[in-house]
């Protein structure tokens, strides 16, 4: 699909902006727009009620230069289409983004800054974002960054869009750095305690071995190696363990939350913290099996009924943060914060930035934080 609907999107935002500008402040929220791509991540963030701004029709790859390591696509382009195109050229999105549904778009992926198993070893979505074109809350179409690897002209507004969940601007186009796929990939398995797993992972992180993913759950550690044939073979020898069959299925199931662990009625929390954190003040109800560890321990999935503020305060103590990633099926909207509360100083800056990009509070208001 190759379709440019940027003018329609711009008109819709401009008219919402004009409508908001002509109203009394108290009624402003009625002009709000809810940005929708493929709907694959609609579970994520706060539920807001606002008129839909549908970006999925704005699609198509605009430029792909394998030897320049860059792809530029309209935001509504399917993530799967991009991955297929890269695959055909022996390349990949190195941040290994989860899709959560076949309808996932590249714009939604960047807006949420979602990254998969390779993140701890290659970088996050934001690390591969070279530039973007956006529509801000005034309905202005703006471009920042570009299609080159090194670019320090102006503030890094592109990366600011990654993870802002559309609250600062609607993504129209993104340019991403891509990387060659590894020649060989294999996964080694170890049965061990969390402590042993953590020691092993942190020992490996001090070597140049080609580790590309780690996962620990149910007393089993899995380490994925990616690189040249000989490098992977040598690393297998060095780290030991048993070699796992059907490697890609396993990592896909972890990435896409199709693994049994994620089949739960309980709320699912995403904890981001220092990889070696041991004394997290959250009690496990099932001998640790309510946790699944990725990124060498820096990303932990937790399924639990423990109150959100308790989880977030435990994470604050270790300078990490917790996100209610999926609400429980039972409740509609949790009363707690979905995202870790910001310090007063940071919240102030966030509000001013929101004001700078979206002065009438039109774009996804309240999707991430109530005040943004």
């Amino acid at each position, binding site marked *: 699909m190759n379709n440019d609907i940027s003018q329609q999107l711009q008109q819709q935002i401009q008219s919402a902006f004009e409508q908001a500008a002509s109203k009394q402040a108290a009624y402003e929220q009625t002009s709000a727009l809810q940005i929708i791509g493929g709907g694959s991540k609609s579970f994520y963030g706060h539920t807001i009620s606002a008129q839909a701004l549908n970006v999925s029709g704005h699609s198509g790859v605009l430029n792909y230069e394998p030897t320049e390591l860059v792809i530029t696509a309209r935001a509504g382009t399917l993530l799967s289409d991009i991955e297929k195109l890269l695959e055909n050229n022996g390349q990949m999105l190195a941040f290994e983004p989860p899709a959560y549904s076949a309808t996932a778009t590249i714009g939604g992926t960047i807006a949420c800054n979602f990254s998969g198993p390779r993140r701890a070893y290659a970088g996050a979505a934001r*690390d591969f974002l070279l530039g973007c074109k956006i529509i801000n809350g005034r309905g202005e179409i703006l471009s920042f960054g570009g299609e*080159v*690897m090194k670019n320090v*002209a102006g*503030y890094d507004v592109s990366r600011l869009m990654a993870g802002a969940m559309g609250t600062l601007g609607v993504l129209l186009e993104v340019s991403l750095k891509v990387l060659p796929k590894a020649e060989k990939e294999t996964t080694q398995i170890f049965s061990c305690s969390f402590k042993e797993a953590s020691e092993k992972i942190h020992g490996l992180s001090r070597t140049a071995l080609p580790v590309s993913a780690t996962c620990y759950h149910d007393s089993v550690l899995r380490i994925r190696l990616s690189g040249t044939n000989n490098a992977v073979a040598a690393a297998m020898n060095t780290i030991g363990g048993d070699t796992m069959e059907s490697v890609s299925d396993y990592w896909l199931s972890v990435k896409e939350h199709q693994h049994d662990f994620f089949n739960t009625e309980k709320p699912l929390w995403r904890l*981001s913290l220092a990889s070696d954190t041991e004394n997290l003040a959250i009690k496990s109800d099932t001998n640790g099996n309510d946790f699944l560890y990725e990124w060498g321990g820096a990303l932990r999935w937790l399924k639990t009924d423990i109150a959100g503020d308790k989880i977030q305060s435990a994470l604050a103590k270790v300078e990490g943060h917790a996100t209610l990633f999926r609400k429980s099926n039972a409740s509609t909207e949790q009363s707690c914060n979905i995202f870790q509360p910001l310090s007063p100083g940071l919240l102030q800056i966030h509000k001013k*930035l929101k004001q700078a990009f979206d002065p009438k509070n039109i774009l996804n208001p309240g999707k991430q934080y109530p005040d943004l």
Partner: protein
Amino acid sequence: MHTTEHVESTISDTALITALKKLVRSDAVLSSDEDLKPYECDGLSAYRALPLVVALPETIEQVQDVLKLCHSHKVPVVARGAGTGLSGGALPHEQGVLLSLAKFKNILHIDPTRRIARVQPGVRNLAISQAVDQYGLYYAPDPSSQIACTIGGNVAENSGGVHCLKYGLTVHNIQQLKIITIDGELLTIGGSGLDSPGYDLLALMTGSEGMLGVIVEVTVKLLPKPERAQVLLAAFDDIVKAGEAVGNIIAAGIIPAGLEMMDSLAIRAAEDFVHAGYPLDAEAILLCELDGTNEEVSEHVAKVRDVLKQSGATEVRTAKDEEERLVFWKGRKAAFPAVGRLSPDYYCMDGTIPRKQLPLVLKTMADLSAEYNLPVANVFHAGDGNLHPLILYDANIPGELERTEEFGGKILELCVEVGGTITGEHGVGMEKINQMCVQFNSLELQQFHAVKAAFDPQSLLNPGKAVPTLHRCAEFGAMHVHKGELPFPELERF
């Protein structure tokens, strides 16, 4: 050239100096012309101005106090690290405080397990790698000034280096910042994990050129030292072939740790200077460094060798040992001072282009060089498209600096024309402020100003740098666009 933007401070010069002396040690406040002189410029020495006063605080509280004072009296503040920047980003403001972070030079904590180091902003880039070497770790971004430049400045400029293509820029290699806002508030940006809630302020601060806040602490990410590094040197009889070879290496699925190109003028200058054994008859050479595990490097060296030969290299050498590897690099690392020996002065440019545009850009640059009658040597971070043309000139010849600046400006505008950028790693600072008008339209510049205002509504931090006013752009445009024609009309538009 530049002019300091005039501001209306609400405190007299002497009262400001007296007040500063109460906030920081009195011998850490400099105000005599003699004491101010060393601060009059950064690495871009063509641009000079004396600050009103220099303050050298040594604690975070002192920085907060100085900023609060300046904030309440509308006094401009220019933060400065080692002053090695090449775009005039640390050029003082004549009515303002030059805030030196030189006394913040402690490495506060190294955590080899988490692979991070928490350091003060005045710690030198190379000192970090040296301090963590004992753990088999290093800090990856390596700007050529790494022996002298400080990490605070690296963050402010989002500094790169020769290993960017594989290991990223500063923005990819930091985890947390402590900054002080213009009103004196200490903010912690980032946390102990790999990401943070809310907006990516870490990215926004990185490369913000001292416009949004003053960096007082940096937590950097460290990497394990590669098991082995190997370098190949390839000679070409045509610079276009060398450019194609770069694309071919990447098409072979290899991301080199470093991939550098030099043209014949740069080769000859470097060879005369350090005798690295470079082939003097070559039109271009490529240096390709591969690192990783032993096995990986062996495989990649063999592959790259084949690719280089198939791409028409007239000669391919592989460094036989570490000593020779360093000799190969020596010429490249000495390229700037080597070119400096050819002429009384040289002006280093810093644009990035999509690599496929290299032939066109080189040809146009050669034409411009003839037009301005100023020679250019080219040193190129070929892997990531970052060009460093060095324009040779003589500042003692009246008007030659101005012509050089105009020529340099044209090169940057050319980079934008072909889909690149006016600065890959040196920053905009004062130097490229006019070219910002070429790269961004007025709405985009207004958005930048709105971002600035979110942090610093009175525009006291580094005023007049990095983002031009629309007024300035209007003047610049009037100077450059003749009869509505854009420069380089023969080029395809992107």
